[in-house]
């Protein structure tokens, strides 16, 4: 994937003497001391990261961590103090007013936490607002606005006014307004935070659906880890104006950079974030079913490895079944010689993207490790009670440490 937005060494100092504060930052003095001595607030401190084309990049942090400032530096609603924001290689921080307006009208739109709709305009006029600013003719912008409203399921309300709509519907209008000029980048500043949980989830699904159809680059600000985990391809975690970690949800969950990052996950239900593939283990006896491999061979392998159960796969690692020492013994006694005669009944492989929360019952009721397969039926390994429990206990682990 190509890099859509590259942020290099971005700083924002609020106050009337940013140079002085920058000097102190370079001398390694921390934020709190700079504020005490000069009254300058460091909003964003040396942020560097890359957003790839077509991904949902979530910036997460507590309030006051500088995430809302950061997103406004990207489209220069707030002027950066120093640093670069490269959009397809062009430095946004160096653009003149005209270039900046063009960028905002064509390439980069924004959705706000408070919706920020124009109360004096109807829904369709709101959706067409960006196009109107760009000077698109009335007929065309009306059509494109209706099309955008259609995408968010609000076409029927086109002639209503924002104050006649519920919060969720208002934010759909905000989303339609951002979609109408078909931008390649969307900045979403806590876009769903003001909505109640049920509607929030609905909107997240909506966003993911839209994203499947048009791969836009989305930078999504959130303070809600569940939301970040749910929609984010990659997550950047901010603390006190500094980007402390960037990575996929699993990477961050498995290797938190510091205690601050770890503390985010304390309240999180790991079982709804991790899926079977995240905790699958491979150290099992697998037997490839082919000509010449019979029940006796399999039994020998199990005995040699001192294992109770064996996993039978095909030559393309496609999962066939599970055998146990007892089932093989019985099969040999009854005179069979195919491996399938010894397969344990009632054990099904689970899909690699099953959430851990949905696996708990299966793992508990299966005597052996539960086999995991990918979407092509390829065997990936197993999940046993020990590794599932250890993963779920991670949370308690964090609280104790």
């Amino acid at each position, binding site marked *: 994937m190509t890099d859509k937005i590259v942020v290099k060494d971005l700083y924002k100092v609020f106050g009337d003497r940013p140079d002085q504060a920058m000097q102190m930052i370079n001398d390694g003095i921390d934020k709190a001391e700079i504020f005490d001595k000069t009254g300058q607030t460091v909003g964003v401190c040396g942020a560097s990261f890359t957003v790839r084309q077509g991904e949902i990049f979530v910036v997460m942090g507590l309030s006051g961590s500088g995430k809302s400032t950061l997103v406004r530096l990207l489209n220069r609603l707030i002027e950066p103090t120093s640093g670069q924001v490269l959009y397809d290689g062009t430095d946004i921080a160096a653009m003149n007013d005209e270039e900046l307006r063009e960028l*905002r009208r064509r390439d980069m739109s924004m959705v706000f936490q408070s919706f920020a*709709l124009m109360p004096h305009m109807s829904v369709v006029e709101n959706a067409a607002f*960006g196009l109107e600013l760009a000077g698109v003719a009335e007929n065309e912008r009306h059509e494109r606005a209706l099309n955008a409203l259609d995408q968010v399921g609000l076409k029927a309300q086109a002639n209503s006014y924002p104050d006649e709509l519920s919060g969720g519907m208002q934010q759909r209008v905000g989303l339609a307004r951002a979609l109408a000029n078909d931008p390649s980048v969307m900045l979403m500043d806590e876009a769903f935070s003001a909505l109640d949980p049920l509607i929030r989830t609905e909107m997240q699904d909506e966003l993911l659906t839209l994203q499947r159809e048009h791969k836009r680059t989305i930078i999504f600000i959130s303070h809600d880890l569940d939301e970040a985990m749910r929609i984010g391809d990659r997550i950047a975690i901010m603390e006190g104006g500094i980007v402390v970690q960037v990575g996929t949800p699993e990477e961050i969950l498995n290797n938190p950079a510091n205690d601050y990052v770890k503390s985010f996950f304390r309240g999180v239900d790991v079982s709804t974030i991790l899926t079977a593939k995240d905790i699958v283990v491979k150290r099992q006896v697998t037997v490839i079913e082919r000509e010449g491999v019979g029940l006796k061979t399999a039994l020998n392998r199990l005995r040699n490895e001192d294992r109770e159960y064996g996993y039978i796969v095909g030559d393309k690692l496609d999962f066939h079944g599970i055998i146990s020492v007892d089932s093989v013994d019985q099969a040999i006694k009854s005179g069979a010689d195919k491996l399938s005669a010894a397969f344990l009944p009632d054990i099904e492989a689970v899909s690699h993207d099953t959430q851990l929360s949905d696996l708990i019952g299966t793992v508990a009721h299966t005597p052996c490790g539960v086999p995991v397969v990918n979407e092509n039926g390829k065997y990936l390994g197993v999940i046993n009670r020990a590794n599932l429990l250890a993963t779920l206990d991670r949370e308690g682990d964090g609280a104790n440490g």
Partner: protein
Amino acid sequence: MFPEQLNVPLGKWVNRFVDWLVVNYGDAFEAFADSLLTILVWLEQILRGTPWWIVVIAVAIIGFHASRNWKIAAGLAIAMVTIGSLGLWDKAMQTLALMIVATSLSVIIGVPVGIAMAMSNRLRAVMLPILDTMQTMPSFVYLIPALMLFGLGKVPAILATVIYAAPPVIRLTDLGIRLVDPEVLEASRSFGASRKQILWKVQLPLALPNIMAGINQTTMMSISMVVIASMIGARGLGEQVLMGIQRLDVGAGMEAGIAIVLLAVVFDRIGQAYGKRSHRSHKAEGKS
């Protein structure tokens, strides 16, 4: 006693300044006065020349257009007829013309000044004390230099009215624009709006209810100036009040007073109805 050495001869300075203005710029002031007078006289002739019932119907139609309520329209028509039945129709039309010109001038000056004040905190800091002065300074104080510059009659009356009546529309335009939700402004900027687009497409439409309230107040204040303006020779209902005072004719004064109040009610109802409509224009349109 305050020591005499510390006295500042401000009065003398002002006199000298006004004298200097009259000597050097008298012609320019006169030219300005003439053009204003032309407009006023033209409007006055139209209003006085139009048959009374057409004016009454026009007021009713405007009232209905503003409020979408035939009761209000009928009430306004009755108020106008009452003014006529008091025998003050002609004088009321003179006052009406004076008010329309003074109010229009106030709005033409006031709205741009209010916009400029909303854009610049420095200008606002300068303008606020000036506006306070305009509203609290006794009007006779500036009626005298206005007389010297423009002579007796309608023009100084209009200017005195504008000085007194313009502050509300200036203040409320400034307030209306400043009250526009900063998040809406940020959203406009994020979609690439220029300053001009923000002003015309966002700030002014959203400030409109406040601007309309300011215009309404300006109108009311210009009506209250008619009596004072009559002292420097403006004709109309104020003149009648003045005459009532001078002749101790309480009845005549009362009649003229009632006519002024009725005129004020007519303007107020129309202005308020338009203000409400600008507030929720789509609702009103939806109902009609």
